[in-house]
């Protein structure tokens, strides 16, 4: 079953994520994707994640699609103006890429080419509107398309945004994204089910499947680093301690992730697992969670 069909049928959705590397070697990425393809509905392909120059998400999405592994093409507004965004979208369609995750993108100054020009001609909301417009047979300027795509667009939300103004604005923007055509939502990494449940109460009635983000912890250090540096991430002390004290980090990480998947089964409409190199452990996470 394809990702779109899974969304439309109301199934509990499972997606994972691969990050193209710096260079042309796709060996490991393809091996990881092959290892999990039967357990998931689609795989996100990140677009120069953290603003680090890498192999492109469109090429890798296309290669996955060719291998029968359904990609979710992550597309950011960081590096492309509206001409390039629309053209890349049409290119994606002819290359067999149908699911697109619309993102603003990190600022280039955070990456390995900090002097690069930040584009941000459009934002995540207008990128979603752009896909709606292309799906309707026109470009942003109103010109008619010869050959029309039928994208299945998604968007993201950060449930861990600062309480108060931060979270309120995330929710307002999420509504705008849904209005602009987002058909599925993936969240930033969640580590606490109680606060996630509260967030899910806030989005009741949004009528778009929300997939809880799960980041697999590699170490206590990684958890501490994310707490300090990644917006919206708060790994609880108990998980940091468990990762610090364990003799088998992978096993403990799988346990933490599967606990989250299990808890989310009754809270939201799917999970998005970001294994960051531990993709091959995703089947274990799902087994333990009873999926």
């Amino acid at each position, binding site marked *: 079953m394809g990702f779109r069909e899974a969304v439309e049928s109301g199934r509990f959705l499972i997606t994972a994520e691969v990050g193209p590397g710096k260079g042309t070697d796709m060996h490991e990425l393809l091996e990881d994707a092959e290892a999990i393809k039967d357990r998931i509905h689609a795989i996100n392909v990140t677009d120069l994640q953290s603003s680090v120059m890498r192999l492109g998400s469109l090429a890798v999405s296309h290669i996955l699609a060719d291998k029968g592994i359904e990609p979710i093409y992550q597309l950011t507004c960081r590096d492309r103006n509206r001409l390039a965004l629309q053209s890349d979208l049409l290119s994606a369609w002819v290359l067999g890429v149908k699911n697109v995750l619309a993102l603003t993108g990190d600022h280039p100054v955070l990456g390995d080419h900090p002097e690069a020009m930040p584009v941000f001609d*459009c934002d995540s909301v207008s990128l979603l509107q752009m896909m709606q417009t292309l799906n309707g047979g026109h470009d942003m300027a109103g010109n008619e398309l010869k050959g029309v795509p039928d994208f299945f667009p998604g968007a993201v*939300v950060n449930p861990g945004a600062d309480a108060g103004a931060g979270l309120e604005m995330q929710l307002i923007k999420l509504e705008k994204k849904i209005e602009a055509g987002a058909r599925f939502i993936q969240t930033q990494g969640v580590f606490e089910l109680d606060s996630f449940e509260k967030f899910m109460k806030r989005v009741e009635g949004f009528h778009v499947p929300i997939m809880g983000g799960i980041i697999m912890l590699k170490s206590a250090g990684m958890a501490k680093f994310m707490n300090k540096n990644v917006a919206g991430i708060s790994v609880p002390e108990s998980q940091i301690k468990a990762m610090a004290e364990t003799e088998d980090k992978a096993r403990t990480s799988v346990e933490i992730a599967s606990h989250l998947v299990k808890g989310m089964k009754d809270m939201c409409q799917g999970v998005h697992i970001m294994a960051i190199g531990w993709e091959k452990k995703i089947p274990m996470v799902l087994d333990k969670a009873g999926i």
Partner: protein
Amino acid sequence: MIVAEVKPMAEIQDTIKKYSKVLISGCGSCVTVCLSGGAQQVEVLASSLRTAAKSQGQQLEVGQETQLRQCDPMFIEQIRDKAAGYEAILSMGCGAGVQTMAETLGNIPVYPALDTVFFGGADGQGGFMETCAACGQCILSRTGGICPVARCAKSLTDGPCGGAQAGNCEVSKDTRCAWQLIYVRLVRLGQVHLLKETTPPKARRVHPARLNRAE
């Protein structure tokens, strides 16, 4: 106002190294207010250059003058005769001032002593901050009088990205997220509903812009 800062001394020295007679020209407007290129800074730069030249055994005569507005040819005309006595001019005006001076004086080289950095205002703590991007399509009426084009690192006009932490920008922990400021202001003004409106991507301005005044 236009905010500028003085270039590194080594760069300025390198720019004028082949000349022995240089006129430093200040501007009495924006760069005087932001303490970068007014009469006082002209004085400081002139004496620094003289001292440096002397210590390096170089012959350098440095003249000084400051106009009310370097970006208006009318004021530049007034120093035409004085300028003719120098090999080069070191302008302490903004980029617009340097160009007006170069255009008006024609056959004498004019070099910048400042880097023009942004449009902004005083931050109340002795510094200045960027507050306007001169985008040509002001949306301040919808953002509580706080400009996300100039004050959000990504110039987002539809609400914040997901990168703010503790209300600060993902690019710098010393910078408040512009959308955080906008939200707080809109709450105070009873205008939070404005955040629900979607802003279409702006028509990008084509450089160079012009403003013609018909009589």
